[in-house]
């Protein structure tokens, strides 16, 4: 196939939401917009080189891999201090969660705090899986590891989360 690349705007329209959700969950809402801009600026620079190179569904994995790296940069820039992840407006989300599911929202808060404590690769694997809804193959591509390693990171991350929430 020598199909031309679609206009960058179409690519942005298609993937903006999953990248946004991934970044809000990974670095917190306050820093998500900077990471979002850096992610798509990097994507724009490389974009013409993708001509003929990738099939449609791989573009999502490609841009999430960039987002993953930008999230790591943001974490590094903040050093080792604890970071909030997910929604920084717990009251709003607690209300939604309570209204939507009837469950106590406090446990979700604990869970996301535990996600923030995970080692980077496990955290990315968990977020890509449950926020990006990516299959293992695409998680592996985004993190830059083998599919087995991605599966392992995800499994280890979930095990830790289960323990943290049960504690």
């Amino acid at each position, binding site marked *: 196939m020598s199909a031309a690349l679609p206009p960058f705007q179409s690519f942005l329209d298609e993937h903006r939401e999953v990248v946004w959700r991934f970044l809000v969950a990974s670095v917190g809402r306050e820093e998500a917009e900077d990471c979002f801009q850096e992610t798509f600026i990097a994507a724009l620079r490389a974009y013409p080189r993708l001509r003929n190179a990738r099939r449609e569904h791989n573009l999502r994995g490609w841009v999430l891999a960039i987002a993953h790296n930008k999230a790591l940069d943001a974490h590094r820039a903040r050093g080792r201090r604890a970071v909030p992840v997910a929604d920084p407006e717990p009251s709003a989300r607690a209300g*939604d969660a309570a209204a939507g599911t009837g469950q106590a929202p406090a446990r979700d808060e604990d869970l996301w705090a535990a996600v923030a404590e995970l080692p980077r690769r496990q955290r990315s694997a968990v977020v890509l899986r449950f926020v990006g809804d990516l299959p293992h193959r695409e998680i592996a591509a985004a993190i830059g590891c083998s599919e087995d390693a991605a599966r392992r990171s995800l499994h280890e991350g979930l095990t830790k989360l289960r323990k943290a929430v049960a504690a």
Partner: protein
Amino acid sequence: MNRRGSDDSDIGRALRRGDPAGAGASAAARRQAGEDAAAVAARLSERLAAEGLADVSYARVDSPLGPLTVAGTRRGLVRVAFAEETLVLERIAERLSPRIVEAPARLDPVRRELDEYFAGARRDFATPLDWSLIEGFSRRVLRATAAIPYGGVRSYGEVAGAAGSPRGSRAAGNALGSNPIPIVIPCHRVLRSGGVLGGYAGGPERKRRLLELEGALQAVRA
């Protein structure tokens, strides 16, 4: 989708619920995340255009002739189209660059000039043009066309002559028919011999209305 295998445990469900737009989130939370992403992306597009990181910016502009797609590069206005936006942008991606973003603020000056023109308050466009979609003989023809004053009309033969090819009126017609910057490069001011309206990329009715706006309709044979 069968992506949710054995790891879709209680933890998985809770994570999806916590994700502001996940499968377990409320409809309001999902909508909010979608709106946030759209707003953040719109700010990004304007930035990409303003900083020159994108090669082409475009906007939709409403006009009395219907919606227009206008696109510009660092050099200037490169495309005005009556045609369906997606096709127009795909063609630009092929011919110029796929680094295309929707950046309405970037095209405000063009939009303002078009508004003034349609209101009868502007006779000449001042916005710079990017001629890179126009090559060879077409460029000579459209340069000659750009020199036809507001309210005036020429025949295809006259424009061909002005482009240096007096017998090339058929080729001139082709060049005019594929004018990538209609209205601003006023190909509507070129008629068939004897004042016959002739064709127009946006359809003859639009051509007639543009000539009417410019007070040149009496030159057209009914």
